[in-house]
C-alpha cells in the first residue's frame, strides 16, 4: 500500500532521518513512536510531501496503479491522502461548516450534497451541537476535532469505496480528553478496517497498544523496530528508546501490553 525505500532527510549538515525503509499494508493503522526529536514529524512530513527527501515513497491504492508520491499531481494527492498537522489554529473566525467544507475543495458536487456530508462529519467528531460558534470560540481540543473532521471529509473516509486511501495524522489526540482520544482513534480504525491505511504519530503508548496494527519505533533518526505492538512495545526496547525506565504488563482482558514509565536519570 505505502512503500518507503531508503528515505533520508538532511537539512544543511543536520540529518533529521536516515535510511528509512518500511511498508505500510492496506488496512493497517500504523503508529509512529519515539522520543522528542527522534524524527517522527520529519518522517510524516516527508510522506506528506511537505519536505524534500532522498529515497522514494510509493503509494499503491488498491485497484489503482502504483504512484511515486514525488511525481503525483496535487489533485491526485488531494483525492487519495489527507494530512493533519499539529497546527490547528485558524487566523480568521470561520464557521465550523466552512472549514469542513474546505476539505472538499477538490470535489465537484452539488451544494446540498456537500452540506449533508459536512454535517455528517461534524457529527462524527461531536461538533454538530456547536454550529452556532466560530473557530475563534473553540477550545484547543475542539479545534483538533474540527481539523480531523476536515480530513475525514476530504477523503469521504468513512464510506466504502473501491479506491483505497491514506491518512497521515501528526499527534491527532494531543489536546483531546480521554473519551475523545478513543472516539478519534475508533474513527481512524473504522477508516483502516475498510482497507485504507493510516499513519499516526502518537505519544500515548497505551493508545498505541490498543489501536495500532503495526508500530514503527524511531530512535536516533533511524527506524529501529517495526512490528506488532506486542513485539515492539517491550520493556527493553522502550527503555532504550525513551531513556527512562519502562514497565510492561499484560492487560487482563485483551492481553495487549500496558505500559508504565518511571523517571530515571541517565
Amino acid at each position, binding site marked *: 500500500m505505502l512503500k518507503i525505500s531508503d528515505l533520508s532527510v538532511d537539512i544543511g549538515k543536520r540529518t533529521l532521518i536516515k535510511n528509512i525503509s518500511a511498508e505500510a499494508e492496506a488496512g493497517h493503522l500504523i503508529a509512529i513512536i519515539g522520543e522528542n526529536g527522534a524524527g517522527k514529524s520529519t518522517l510524516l512530513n516527508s510522506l506528506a510531501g*511537505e519536505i524534500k527527501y532522498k529515497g522514494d515513497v510509493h503509494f499503491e491504492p488498491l485497484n489503482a496503479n502504483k504512484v511515486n508520491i514525488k511525481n503525483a499531481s496535487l489533485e491526485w494527492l488531494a483525492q487519495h491522502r489527507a494530512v493533519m*498537522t499539529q497546527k490547528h489554529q485558524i487566523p480568521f473566525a*470561520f464557521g465550523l461548516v466552512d472549514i469542513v467544507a474546505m476539505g472538499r475543495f477538490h470535489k465537484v458536487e452539488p451544494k446540498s450534497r456537500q452540506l449533508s456530508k459536512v454535517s455528517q462529519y461534524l457529527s462524527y467528531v461531536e461538533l454538530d451541537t456547536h454550529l452556532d460558534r466560530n473557530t475563534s470560540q473553540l477550545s484547543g481540543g475542539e479545534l483538533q476535532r474540527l481539523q480531523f473532521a476536515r480530513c475525514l471529509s*476530504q477523503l469521504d473516509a468513512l464510506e466504502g469505496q473501491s479506491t483505497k486511501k491514506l491518512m497521515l495524522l501528526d499527534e491527532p489526540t494531543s489536546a483531546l480528553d480521554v473519551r475523545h482520544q478513543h472516539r478519534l482513534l475508533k474513527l481512524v480504525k473504522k477508516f483502516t478496517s475498510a482497507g485504507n491505511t493510516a499513519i499516526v504519530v502518537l505519544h500515548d503508548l497505551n493508545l498505541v497498544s490498543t489501536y495500532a496494527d503495526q508500530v514503527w519505533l524511531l530512535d536516533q533518526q533511524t527506524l529501529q523496530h517495526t512490528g506488532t505492538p506486542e513485539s515492539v512495545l517491550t520493556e527493553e526496547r522502550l527503555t532504550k528508546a525513551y531513556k527512562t525506565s519502562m514497565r510492561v504488563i499484560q492487560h487482563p482482558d485483551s492481553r495487549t501490553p500496558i505500559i508504565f514509565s518511571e523517571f530515571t536519570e541517565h
Partner: protein
Amino acid sequence: MLVGLVLAQTGTATQALCRNPLADPSIIGVTAGAAVAAVMMIGIGYQYNIDVAFWLPIASFIGALSVTALVAMLSTRGGAINVTNLILVGVALNALAFAVIGLVSFYADDSALRLINYWTMGSLAGATWSTLFNALPLMLISIVGLYSLNKKLNVLLLGESEAKYLGLDVSKLKHKTVIFTAIGVGATVSMTGMIGFIGLIVPHISRMIVGPKITYVMPLSMAIGAAGLLLADWAARNVISPAELPIGIITALIGAPFFLYLLIQQRSKHA
C-alpha cells in the same frame, strides 16, 4: 468608484495572501512603491517630454510589482510570510519611498512639483476621463483576475501546507495574487496617487457583516470600497468648499486610527 473597488479588492486579496487582517497594499509599502515609480516618471517625463499619461500606469505597475517582490522576499522565513516582518519591512519601505519622492520633488520643476504633491496625498482631482482611459485596461485585468481567485484564496486561509494538501497549487496562487494586486495598485496609483487604508478598513467591515469567507468578503468589499470612496470624495469636496481636500487625507484621517484600533484588538486577543 472604480478606484475604491480596486483598492478594497486588492486589500482583501493581500489579507488573504498574508493570512492577516492587518495587511494592505498601502501598509506593506506596495502603494508607496507604485507612487515612487509614478513620481519618478513625472519628474523624468516633464524634463524629456515623454508621454507621461500613457507611461504612468505602466511605471506604477512596475513600481508596485518590484516592491511586492521585495517585501515578499524580505519577510519570508522558512517558506512562509512572517507577518511581523511584513509590517516592519513595509514601514521601512514606506519611509524609503517618501525619501525618494522627497528627493525627486527637490529637483523637479514647478509644474511637476505641484503634480507630485497631489500624488503623495492622493487626490481624485487629477483623474480625468483620459487618465481613466489609460488605467482602465489594467484595472479590469486586476478586478477580473483577483475575482477569479477568490475561492482559492479562501482555502489558503486554512494555511499554506493545508491548502496544498487539499490540492491547491499554493505558489502559483501566490504569484498570481501578487501580480494582479500590483497591476491594480499600479493602475489606481497612476490615476489618483496614494489613497491609503481603503484596502485595510473595507475588508474588515465586510468581514463583520458576512464573516471571513473570501467568496463573500471580496464582492462585498468591492461594493463597499466603491461606495466608501464616493463618500470620501464627497467629504473631500465639501469640508472646506469651494476648495477640494486631497482624498488621501480623508482616508488616512479615518484609516490610521482604525489601524491602531485593529492592532490593539489583535494584541488583546493574543494576550
